């Protein structure tokens, strides 16, 4: 089943006529993802062409969704307009918006999060690599790729991956794939302090997904989202979980690339989070090279077959 999206999900891309959005819309089409519409205000009626694909462009999300049946949006619009793009998705009644945009003002996200709290739409991101549900084809083609992750490193399977960081997600996925372990869905929740979906939200979905048998959770310094998820796992999750926290060597008070990655107090250091992971029965990856191996250890301890 996978979570959030399946290979059948119909995707629209906001910002499809921009460099960034266009490039990744093409890669998603190549991967076999059903990119059915683009949205760029003022360019409605035009087409986004790529090889055999001719994707219609609309002026609004509502029109794109109505005309093409798209239920998911990939948002690539620049930071000053991104908050509005998210609100437009919620208003159009989409199921899911995945905001790739990096650099959205915190105040905009505070308002957006408040505004969409009453809507049924889920937001992933912003400042995230997106979501991939691998397909059954060669190099996992035929899957659903929303965002900027390299599709070909995936392999269809039964491990769920959730992370705040893009490249660390790829690192984990690659390690799993090389070892012959496939993934159900890989979710990048983003590196910003205010995001739509937390580690815990995704862990709950993986826990409820019959196809997912093991979970890799990748976190970093700052905030307490990983701690919240770890405590819930201890009380509720029956599946093996491996965890990694980046930023053990980060100096306090400095923003480490991600706006959310800043040590504010004793509770959000890497050491504090790793201690909570261990205490909650999560197998800790001691280095980033150890993420897949840590999950294998956790699975073995519980007698779970990952592939």
């Amino acid at each position, binding site marked *: 089943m996978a979570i959030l999206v399946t290979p059948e999900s119909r995707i629209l891309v906001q910002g499809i006529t921009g460099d960034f959005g266009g490039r990744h819309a093409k890669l998603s089409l190549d991967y076999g993802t059903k990119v059915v519409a683009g949205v760029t205000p003022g360019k409605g009626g035009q087409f986004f062409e790529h090889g055999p694909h001719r994707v219609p462009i609309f002026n609004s999300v509502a029109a794109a969704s109505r005309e093409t049946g798209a239920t998911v949006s990939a948002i690539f619009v620049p930071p000053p307009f991104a908050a509005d793009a998210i609100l437009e998705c919620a208003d159009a009644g989409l199921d899911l918006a995945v905001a790739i945009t990096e650099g959205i003002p915190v105040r905009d996200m505070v308002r957006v*999060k408040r505004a969409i709290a009453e809507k049924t739409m889920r937001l992933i991101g912003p400042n995230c690599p997106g979501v991939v549900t691998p397909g059954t084809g060669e190099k996992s083609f035929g899957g659903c790729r929303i965002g900027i992750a390299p599709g070909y490193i995936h392999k269809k399977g039964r491990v769920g991956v959730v992370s705040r*960081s893009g490249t660390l997600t790829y*690192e984990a996925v690659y390690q799993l794939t090389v070892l012959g372990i496939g993934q159900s869905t890989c979710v990048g929740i983003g590196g910003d302090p205010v995001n739509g979906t937390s580690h815990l939200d995704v862990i709950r979905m993986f826990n409820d997904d019959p196809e997912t048998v093991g979970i890799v959770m990748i976190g*970093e310094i700052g*905030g307490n989202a990983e701690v919240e998820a770890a405590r819930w796992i201890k009380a509720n999750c029956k599946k093996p979980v491996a965890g990694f926290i980046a930023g053990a*060597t*980060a100096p306090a008070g400095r923003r480490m690339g*991600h706006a959310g990655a800043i040590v504010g107090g004793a509770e959000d250091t890497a050491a504090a989070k790793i201690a909570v992971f261990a205490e909650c029965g999560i197998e800790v990856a001691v280095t*980033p090279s*150890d993420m897949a191996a840590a999950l294998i250890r956790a699975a073995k301890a519980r007698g779970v077959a990952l592939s």
Partner: protein
Amino acid sequence: MNIHEYQAKALLEKFGVPVPKGAAAKTPEEFINALTELPEGPTMVKSQIHAGGRGKGTFTDGYKGGVKFCKTKAEAKEVASRMLGNTLVTVQTGPAGRKVQTVYFTVASDIKKEYYLAILLDRVASRPVIVASTEGGVEIEKVAHETPEKIFKVVVDPAYGLADFQVRELVTRLGFSGAEAKNASKLIRSLYSMYWETDAAMVEVNPLISTPTGEVLALDAKVSFDDNSLFRHPEIVALRDLNEEDPKEVEASKHSLNYIALDGNIACLVNGAGLAMSTMDIIKHFGGSPANFLDVGGGATRSQVVAAFKIILGDANVKGIFVNIFGGIMDCNVIATGIVEAVREVGLKLPLVVRLEGNNVDAGKATLASSGLTIVSGDSMADAAQKIVKLVGKAA
């Protein structure tokens, strides 16, 4: 982005938050003009650097105290001349300290009682939170640890803004009444407007004071802003003081590189913030010490890689370089070619370990191997980290 106290006070005043009368000076000649703006009498002299703990700091020439009380303006002028151009070391500056390039004179207020007031993002609620305490003028971390019951929090709903009942609650819990309560209410509302309208990341007033005449004033102010919002605040960007930033970090930001200097000797060049952080961690794990955090971003171009190498080599402590690239979308061979060109252009003499993984990695590795340069190739992050730690250990 951080600003100085004197800049923060000016912003506060603009939004209607009362502060003690003050004036800043950047040269000894400006002392006289600045002091003319203040009345005769007790005066505070405050070193302006972007670091806390100034009052308890020591200058590198042995002079004690980056914030001083003076009985007269004449004395304030003397004290200021000791501070200006001198280097102040505080608990937050590190041993190198910071050169004081601006001093700020303020009227020394009569203090009846000190309080604490701050506004920042509550990450759990994803909403602004106002934090207040009856214990001001001391470190809030200490209060939180020893007497947490003396700290109050009010979370603001962004759909409605700061509500009157919330202001009343804060004022009451801080123990204000009468004219003081009225003044404190106005100050809290003004401070919240400033936080919200300027896209501040944090506004901290410590101490907030009451005076014997019923005034409520922000005696000190520390303000930082959300970097993501600076595009819509040119008036805030104008307050940026490059003297307070590491020149290598300033140079890096010009090339859209995310660089933070650390005190180790193994430089890192990585794509992606999470991977960059964990590259530092893995160096430490194998007994080395990272010299920096450096994220070249997802689409590292050749010119960015060259700029990154130059910035790294500007750090005299660096004894070796670890390049860690996961080429997801990017072709590893393009990245490898960029590395080879960069190494040639900067004439690199230090040990270099490169770990490449991802798209077209075999061609990338072949490019590195056939370059004729002494580039050590690492298979995994762990393998590469061990190699660079060993090479740097040998060189030292």
